[in-house]
């Protein structure tokens, strides 16, 4: 399928709630809003594809393009591995002016050969980028020939940056897994309680925060797509009994197509927040029982949920004195616009605004459930307005991603990173506790009073 057809296909996603709410004609236009030149932010399709695939730790990830794509971008995420480290190395063909003139296919071929000979990895993912796409380098053909020649999987990832946004790149990565990886290896240890987790990239080890919960229930991870993954695990993902899609609208096509092709049903869920973690466990247990697991899984799950929730609420209680009465500006979007709200509200915090930029109708309903019809939902807040709210004390702390970090800090207000660049793991029950702990630390740090005090010679 051509790249254009692929993009049209993933944009027609019937499993996507946002898409279902659209009319037929609107749906046909696809879900990539054209970017506004001079007022756009965020990564490109290549970026998104690499984010989704690079956590496959024992594969080599080779970027075919000039130095900007990998030289500026490698080594920038905290996707953790329990073993192999090959995925951490940056590999690129570093195309020069001469390569552009003569075509980059030969150099790509040689680069693949060097990687194959030096590391003997189970797979090499080859990322197409804008410049070689423009000059007509046929990455698919080179990968096919290299797979045959070197007897390993050389997989083209056709998501050049100009194809669209990071979100589209995520989707195209999912398509790549469907087309080239999933279903290519038969495991010999299939069980009735095997699941895949889709959409978790094990940032700062968050996958490891929740896996012990599954293990206590006897639920086994067949494949992680793709946090801390091994290539062969992903290749055998088609033998799981259920899929869990976490916080990802982008990879819903992957989950839906696995259901179509391999009859693996999926549920959507999130590990952010206490109720959500419980709901994920509950939903997954139900799904597995319907798929043939022993019915006592349901009771065991309820027992685990009850004991974990009680434990975590007790632990959270000691933060109430610091957090109670504090006003939070929650600027994230998507499911995080509500998933941590209940914990914060329970501890006496007020959410003064929560942004619903990337949120679905379902997300918005959840916010209303938690905060009532008058829930303070907003779309994008211009940075200048955000700065004012923080500077004037309308909010005591902002929870957001790295992009808006300095708006808060320059306004001399505490800030907590809750997006993918963060250094702390916030998934599951213990992750929620960790988040609240970090929140309390940020708010109670002694610098705030000092930095806000004017110099003695002013006033």
């Amino acid at each position, binding site marked *: 399928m051509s790249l254009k057809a692929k993009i049209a296909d993933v944009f027609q996603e019937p499993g996507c709630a946002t898409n279902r709410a659209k009319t037929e004609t609107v749906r046909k236009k696809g879900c990539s809003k054209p970017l506004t*030149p001079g007022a756009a932010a965020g990564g490109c399709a290549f970026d998104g594809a690499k984010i989704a695939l690079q956590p496959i730790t024992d594969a080599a990830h080779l970027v075919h393009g000039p130095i900007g794509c990998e030289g500026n971008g490698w080594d920038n995420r905290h996707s953790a591995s329990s073993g192999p480290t090959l995925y951490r*190395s940056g590999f690129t063909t570093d195309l020069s002016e001469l390569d552009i003139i003569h075509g980059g296919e030969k150099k790509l071929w040689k680069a693949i050969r060097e990687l194959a000979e030096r590391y003997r990895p189970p797979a090499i993912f080859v990322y197409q980028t804008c410049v070689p796409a423009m000059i007509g380098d046929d990455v698919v053909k080179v990968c096919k020939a290299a797979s045959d020649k070197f007897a390993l999987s050389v997989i083209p990832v056709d998501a050049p940056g100009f194809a669209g946004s990071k979100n589209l790149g995520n989707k195209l990565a999912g398509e790549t897994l469907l087309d080239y990886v999933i279903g290519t290896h038969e495991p010999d240890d299939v069980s009735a309680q095997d699941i895949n987790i889709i959409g978790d990239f094990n940032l700062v080890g968050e996958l490891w925060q929740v896996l012990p919960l599954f293990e206590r229930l006897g639920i086994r991870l067949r494949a992680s797509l793709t946090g801390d993954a091994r290539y062969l695990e992903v290749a055998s993902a088609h033998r799981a009994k259920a899929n869990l899609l976490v916080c990802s609208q982008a990879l819903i096509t992957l989950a839906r197509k696995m259901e179509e092709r391999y009859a693996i049903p999926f549920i959507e869920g999130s590990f952010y927040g206490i109720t959500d973690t419980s709901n994920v466990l509950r939903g997954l247990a139900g799904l597995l029982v319907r798929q043939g697991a022993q019915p006592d899984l349901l009771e065991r799950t309820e027992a685990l949920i009850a004991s974990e929730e009680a434990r975590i609420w007790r632990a959270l209680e000691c933060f109430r004195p610091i957090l109670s009465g504090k006003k939070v500006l929650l600027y994230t979007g998507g499911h995080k616009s509500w998933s941590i709200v209940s914990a914060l509200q329970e501890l006496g915090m007020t959410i003064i605004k929560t942004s619903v930029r990337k949120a679905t109708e379902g997300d918005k309903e959840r916010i209303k459930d938690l905060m009532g019809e008058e829930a303070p939902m907003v779309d994008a807040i211009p940075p200048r307005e955000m*700065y004012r709210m923080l500077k004037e004390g309308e909010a005591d702390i902002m929870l957001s991603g790295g992009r808006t970090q300095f708006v808060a800090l320059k306004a001399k207000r505490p800030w907590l990173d809750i997006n993918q660049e963060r250094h702390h793991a916030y998934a599951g029950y213990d992750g929620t506790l960790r988040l609240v702990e970090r929140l309390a630390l940020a708010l109670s740090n002694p610098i705030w009073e000092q930095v806000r005090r004017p110099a003695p010679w002013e006033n």
Partner: protein
Amino acid sequence: MARIVNARKSCATNPLKMSAPLGGAMAFMGLDGCLPLLHGSQGCTAFGLVLLVRHFREGIPFQTTAMNEVTTIMGGLDNLEQAILNIASRTKPRIVGICSTGLVETRGEDIPGDMRLIRQRHPELSDTALVFASTPDYVGGMEEGWAAAVTAMVETLAQPRRARSRRERGRINLLAGCHLTPGDIEELRETIEAFGLSATVLPDLSGSLDGHVPEQYISTTFGGTKVEDIAGMGNAGLTIAVGGHMLAAAQALHAKTGVPYVGFDRLTGLGPSDHLVETLADYSGRLVPEKLRRQRSQLVDAMLDGHFFFGAKQVALAGEPDLMLALGTWLTEMGAELKALVATTAQPRLELLPGAEVLVGDLDDLEAMAGGCDLLITHSHGRGMAERLGLPFYRAGFPQFDRLGAQSQRLVGYRGTRDLIFAVGNLLMEHGHDHVPVAPSRRMSHAAA
């Protein structure tokens, strides 16, 4: 004299080099009220922006023309025009600094032509300076992109001197290379001011990215060289260019305005610092101030105290060419030896490095050569190899994302060199003890006891 050798492999592994548009856009960060704009896909901007945020720990106002597949085929004029108009109406910058990327250069866009057209169509932009630097990703690296941007600033914004206008002898221009930190620029400005002179620094990251807290929200760069300052550079009495990659800009300014220039390959170490101070003393006709004499003496003392730890130490060094020249030469002046040298691009002046060979390559090449070294110096991406090889690691250059204070690291002048001796010397001291095995007879007697 070192031989420059190109790495013979097709797969660059653990890249050392970053792209030219990133260097160009970073140079534009040193202008006041500026909005750097990369003409390419949104990813070109996003990757560079993230790297700068991680290094400086500041918001970085980069923008993108957001080229997509269709506009790449049809041509980028509309995107460039819209981007400039949107930026002008939203953030009202004094300058939009435009860098091209591999994407638009491969297509062969006539960007200067597009800009003329945009100017004609939009008289409302008359108060906004537009500067364009050609920086395709596939030619050179950060240093080359930075150089192209500074040359473009001079060529576009410096005004030819009016007839009969007097030169301002008391003012000199300082063209700062990309290897200078905000801390370095502050140091050089102080040194110049110590002679009763004032300096126009271009570009001036010490104004915008020194890490300070403005009292209001500003959506462009805040601080840096002003458009008027650049316009007036032609009236200065002298231009000082720091780093070989700033010579082209110094020559361009000279050609346009006649300001004489002097170039410094490097300003790290006693000799180069003396050379700068001597130049300033000669130019100003003043005696070297007591403060600088004292600083010199302090550096000499640091060299005396520190040299024990540097003698015959084997160093692995990688970076952009002018940073390599500054640090590599200084290291040998302290008695260390350059064992493994890797540079981003094949600049001929790398031959001046006092080592056998400079490889144009990546961090993987450096790792292959650095076994048995006593010290590693490169940017933060070297931390993986430092760990694998168990090498003491001093971070220098861009990016430094796993340390605080990259903006105030000071490597030039008497005080900068002294700081450097202390920082690197401490690392070598910590790891440099002899490990004599306990004599067999002593081991025996202890076992008996």
